[in-house]
């Protein structure tokens, strides 16, 4: 890992050492802005830090580890859209505000699935609308905003129907819109995958810690070989997915989608086992393991399902090998 990415990680862990530290959505948002996260992916020429996608990937993992509330992932998509739309009037001010933390939200589903699963739509002033025809910033004043409460309480999601006369700033149209939308969907998948891996690492650590302290039959649970082997399998799955994630930050959209599906299944697998490892206590709201379980399941459905991405990836394998 480069020194830069190590520094990003170290700083993140100082501010957000665990999920408790990030519980307050408003405070966390300010802290993320202060850490410069919203500037990270913006080129230096535009006032940002000019970091690459693999640097952003470190941030996404930290967001997952801290079970970050709020619409940060949507913000990263909006920032990227603005960076990729050089000719938009007022872009500099929009970027400046967004880097400072003015929230622009967007759907956490892939394009084509409509304006569902939009985080914090009730407080954001604008929404980034992505489609193959047009990418645009649309004002949320007068929009119909319907809560979509999920079992995962860490993200506040809504369905959005902007007002017919809502102000609209087009960022791309035609072929450019299709390309940008694909790029943004890829970034969404990268973000969800990073979130999944950070979360999986946190919940696995929590489970192993618990097994080490909880005793049954005069020995710590962590000494039971059956549990050790299952924990080892989870570790293997997690490390393997992490290697793919780190190698994929610049990958093509389809590969990012398949990677997201893989990583989110691993998060789900780790979280599902982590609850079992905890036994009864894992089923109580007082104990945090369920928070990660619920986020794991939600992540799995955002950004396109595994069924969708795996089918697409399978098609691609057939095409690749038929062509070759």
């Amino acid at each position, binding site marked *: 890992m480069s020194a830069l990415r190590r520094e990003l990680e170290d700083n993140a862990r100082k501010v957000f050492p665990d999920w408790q530290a990030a519980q307050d959505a408003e405070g966390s948002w300010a802290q993320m802005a202060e850490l410069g996260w919203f500037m990270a992916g913006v080129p230096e020429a535009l006032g940002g830090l000019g970091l690459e996608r693999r640097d952003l990937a470190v941030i996404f993992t930290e967001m997952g580890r801290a079970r970050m509330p709020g619409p940060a992932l949507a913000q990263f998509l909006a920032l990227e859209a603005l960076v990729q739309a050089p000719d938009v009037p007022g872009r500099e001010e929009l970027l400046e505000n967004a880097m400072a933390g003015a929230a622009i939200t967007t759907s956490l589903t892939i394009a084509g699935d409509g304006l569902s699963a939009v985080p914090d739509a009730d407080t954001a002033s604008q929404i980034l609308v992505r489609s193959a025809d047009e990418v645009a910033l649309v004002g949320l004043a007068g929009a119909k905003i319907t809560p979509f409460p*999920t079992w995962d309480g860490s993200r506040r999601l809504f369905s959005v129907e902007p007002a017919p006369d809502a102000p609209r700033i087009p960022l791309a149209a035609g072929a450019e819109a299709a390309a940008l939308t694909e790029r943004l969907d890829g970034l969404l998948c990268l973000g969800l995958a990073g979130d999944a891996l950070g979360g999986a690492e946190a919940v696995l650590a929590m489970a192993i810690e618990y097994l080490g302290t909880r005793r049954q039959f005069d020995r710590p649970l962590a000494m039971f070989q*059956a549990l050790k082997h299952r924990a080892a399998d989870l570790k293997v799955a997690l490390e393997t997915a992490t290697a793919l994630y780190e190698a994929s930050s610049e990958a093509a959209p389809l590969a990012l989608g398949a990677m997201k599906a893989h990583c989110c299944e691993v998060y789900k697998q780790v979280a599902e086992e982590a609850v079992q490892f905890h*036994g*009864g206590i*894992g089923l109580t*709201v*007082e104990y945090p393991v369920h928070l990660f379980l619920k986020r794991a399941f939600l992540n799995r459905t955002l950004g396109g399902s595994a069924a969708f991405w795996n089918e697409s990836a399978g098609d691609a394998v057939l095409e690749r090998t038929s062509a070759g």
Partner: protein
Amino acid sequence: MTQEDDALRREIRDWIAREAPRDWRTASTHEAFVASQRSWFAKLVGAGYAVPHWPREWPGGGRSLAEQKIIYEELARADTPRLLLSFVSTYHAFATLAECASAQQRSHYLPRILEGETWCQGFSEPGAGSDLAAIRSRAERRGDVYVVSGQKVWSTMAQYADMCLLLVRTSADGPKQAGLTYLLMDMRLPGVSVRPIHQIQGDEEFAEIFLDEVEIPVSQRVGEEGAGWAVAQATLASERGLTLMELSYRMRGAMLRLSEAVHAAGRTCDAGVLRKLGALATRVDAVCALADRFLQKRMDEDERVGDASIVKLAYSRCLRAWTNLGVELADLAGQMHAPITFGDLNSGNWMADFMNSYAWTIAGGSDEVQRNIIAERMLGMPREPKNWITEARP
């Protein structure tokens, strides 16, 4: 299947069609749920279907296991509410009273159970779950009373219970099991407090019981002082088949919910989805057949050690797979928070069902404990040595 069996089946089916509540899934508060449980139990008592396993002198009692099976099959098939609130009273408390209690205790408590008195079980403790013998709640005899202090956990619906089957430690000497004593505790005694456990899916099916110098009359003891372990075995052995049969049948009936999810997802022509659905349906059928066979073995007095563990594990893993497929099919829509239906394992509220399924992989002997039993007591694989010398963690 005899003619009498057929007659019983028709009889209860007709009765259910007339009397069973249909709206129980809409009860979204604890109070409404408890009220609905009480009225359903009272109806069953009235019709003679509540305690088919009790002796003949009780109304509705004296049913063979085959007849009991028919009753629960029909209750499952018609998707009636499960009997959660009265389960400990009619099975655990009944078995304990019938097999181990004094005649006076029996004649005092059994009629009340039919009148709706509810019981809870005070066995598990924070440090004594799978390893039940590690119980530490302390009972000290002072004259005619035991003075009890300690904490119980995972007690089903203790917050609504009138009485408690309480296992406590009266001696710290000798083998862990030998120091336990069994008491029948009135939940209204001073020093008893109950705190519902908030579960991750929103249910409050369990509670913690805190005992602070509770004075329980010695006359409330079941068996001798120090004989609690043996009495507890009678409690735990009270039901080991009908419930899993009933639940398996309910799961089979609820394949409908998965079909609905396939339709809702627009995947009725998706070969991959159809295969998952078909494979799961067959697995569910297999679990039902297994539960049937287990009951048959009990009827034939042919049960082997470990058979019950196999049924429980087969059911718990299948239920998990069932909920997992539902969650997957429902995709994003399935993540929407919806109020739970209390005690329903197959509601089609998929995330709730998924989380509820842990109740079967963890409670009542976790999957891991069942695997140990099967490996050691059925497959003859050697136990680990008891005299571990544990090392410090590195």
